[in-house]
């Protein structure tokens, strides 16, 4: 029996499943007793599961994350919530130096901690209220990074992240919250078998993206279809460890690649997608230069005229794809 849910409802359902079925799961972070912080995605969890398992905290990102890691090393599966990813930077020592390396450097147990970072941008929020830092964190061995694009993945990747014995960074994007999908009842999910998914099949060009950029790519594919261009859209879902094989197989078929990312270009996910596919295929497999659509390499502006040109749009993705398809080999 399937039901139709939104992306934010998917996150909420994921929490409800985890807290309801796993006594070792608890949630900790700023604003958990106040829906203002985390929207509808954690509504009433403190009332239904108790304030001892849904813990609101002082303004201490680093301490909170370290405490969750300490609890995860001692039998629990905490989910730390950072309602805005920009502030999660304050917790980076615990995420990068401690959680990601603990198992390797101590030859021991991995912290079974999940860290939820929310991308919350637009609306003239500016440089410190807008960042999508997935590329940074996906650079770190030992830290799994997942980024759902769909409502079913919003729920299921949260469950997979929390049940995983490794530290996982789960990044959701508020621009995805209105997405809907039909879902089956929730159940346990194994993160290690999650792979990129082909969200739309096509022949002429491969668009590779994650999270909200997947939605842009799907919208661009619609625009391209009207011009007679058939675009295949791949949703990466898991950024670390990154599986290039699905994208490479697609490009082998289409001969063309456009990476779409809501982060910056330099040392970012889009470049990593292109590198992974380029290394997997012979030069003869490419009918055109791979390209990328990303944010410009600038902090997020506030003024609406600058914000308008800052974020990639479906139109920009479609126009870039069209250039690639029409480019002379």
């Amino acid at each position, binding site marked *: 029996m399937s039901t139709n849910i939104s992306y934010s409802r998917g996150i909420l359902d994921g929490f409800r499943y985890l807290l309801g079925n796993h006594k070792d799961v608890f949630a900790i972070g700023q604003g958990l007793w106040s829906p203002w912080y985390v929207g509808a995605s954690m509504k009433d969890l403190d009332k239904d599961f108790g304030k001892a398992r849904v813990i609101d905290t002082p303004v201490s990102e680093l301490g*909170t994350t*370290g405490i969750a890691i*300490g*609890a995860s090393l001692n039998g629990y599966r905490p989910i730390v919530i950072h309602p805005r990813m920009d502030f999660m930077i304050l917790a980076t020592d615990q995420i990068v130096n*401690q959680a990601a390396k603990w198992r390797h450097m101590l030859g021991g147990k991995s912290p079974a901690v999940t860290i939820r970072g929310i991308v919350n941008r637009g609306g003239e929020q500016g440089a410190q209220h807008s960042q999508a830092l997935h590329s940074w964190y996906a650079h770190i061995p030992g830290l799994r990074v997942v980024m759902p694009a769909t409502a079913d993945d919003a729920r299921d990747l949260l469950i997979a992240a929390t049940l995983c014995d490794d530290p996982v960074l789960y990044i959701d994007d508020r621009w995805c919250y209105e997405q809907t999908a039909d879902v089956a009842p929730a159940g346990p999910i194994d993160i290690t078998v999650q792979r990129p998914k082909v969200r739309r099949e096509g022949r002429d060009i491969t668009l590779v993206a994650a999270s909200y950029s997947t939605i842009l790519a799907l919208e661009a594919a619609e625009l391209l279809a009207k011009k007679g261009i058939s675009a295949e859209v791949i949703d990466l879902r898991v950024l670390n460890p990154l599986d290039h094989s699905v994208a490479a197989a697609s490009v082998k078929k289409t001969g063309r690649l456009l990476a779409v990312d809501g982060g910056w270009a330099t040392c970012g996910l889009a470049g990593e997608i292109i590198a992974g596919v380029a290394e997997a295929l012979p030069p003869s497999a490419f009918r055109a230069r791979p390209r990328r659509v990303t944010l410009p390499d600038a902090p997020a502006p506030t003024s609406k005229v600058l914000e308008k040109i800052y974020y990639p749009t479906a139109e920009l993705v479609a126009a870039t794809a069209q250039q690639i398809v029409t480019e002379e080999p």
Partner: protein
Amino acid sequence: MTDSRLGPLADPAQFNGPLDLTGFDAVALRKMLKTILTIRYAEEAVADLIESKEAVCPCHLGIGQEGVAAGVSSVLHNSDRAYGNHRSHSHYLAMGGGLFEMFAEILGRLPGASKGMGGSMHLYAPEVGFGGSVPIVGATIPIAVGAALAAKMDGKGAVGVAYFGDGACEEGVLHESLNMAAIYKLPVLFVCENNLYSSHLDIDLRQPTDSVARFAQAHRIPHRTVDGNDVAAVARAAGELVAAARSGEGPGFLEAVTFRWRGHVGPKEDIDVGVLRKPEILAAWKKRDPLARLRAGMVTAVQLTDVEYQQYDAEARATVADAVARARLAEYPPESALLDLVYTAGAKA
């Protein structure tokens, strides 16, 4: 109690006589003596391994500071969760971490405490209550608080312990951790080994006053400041604070004033970068030796004889030598460890 200055506690010319061991039985004292002897000779052996270039990883020796770990561990159990820092040989050994495993770890061998993956700065023995040590200053403080949160959720009376130094008190994360431990009333003991030095700067060049217990007071956490080279004083204060934590009264903070005899890193006494420690101060602190003072106190308290002491001394030396010899012969990790240890496969159903 207010501790604006350490006063006599920071003066090495004081507190250098035999320890007052009132209230301790012979069994407990002999155990603490053996622990201190083992740590002392183990760290001297580490120094030798560095000198001979067999040990290459950074090794931070705490020779002269053994009384703190020996006293604190005397009130802990295997079910407790102690976390250390860059200078944690004593914390690990006092909890019961294996000597052979420590030397094997320092030499990068597979049977090491951390499978040969971490070296001196990454010791690990969760089976005896030592949850791990890392060199990022202050990093294990919130982790120990999280271990205490887990212990509170378990409801079995275990405590978390965070070992850190006076330098870590200058990291913001200590203050976040103290605050959260206080508001959630978590069973955690914060142990600051105040050795009056960061890697290279005297505390007077880094803080407006030399006692760090004021940070506990700011967060309404019960605190004690003691002579860290008096294992009995450490054990008494840790015992009170840990008992309160176990019974649900929340965190405690122990400031143990001590001094390291060697440089920040490596075997030499005065290689500190930047501001050198004065040789006469080090010489004075060596007279405030936690080992010699415990021995002298035990002569009166439990009639420890020279013969008996020499027997413990010889046993500790022999045990350390045997562990070093065996560690030298241990195998290295397989090349597959490089990638195999990055992730744990699978999910919990």
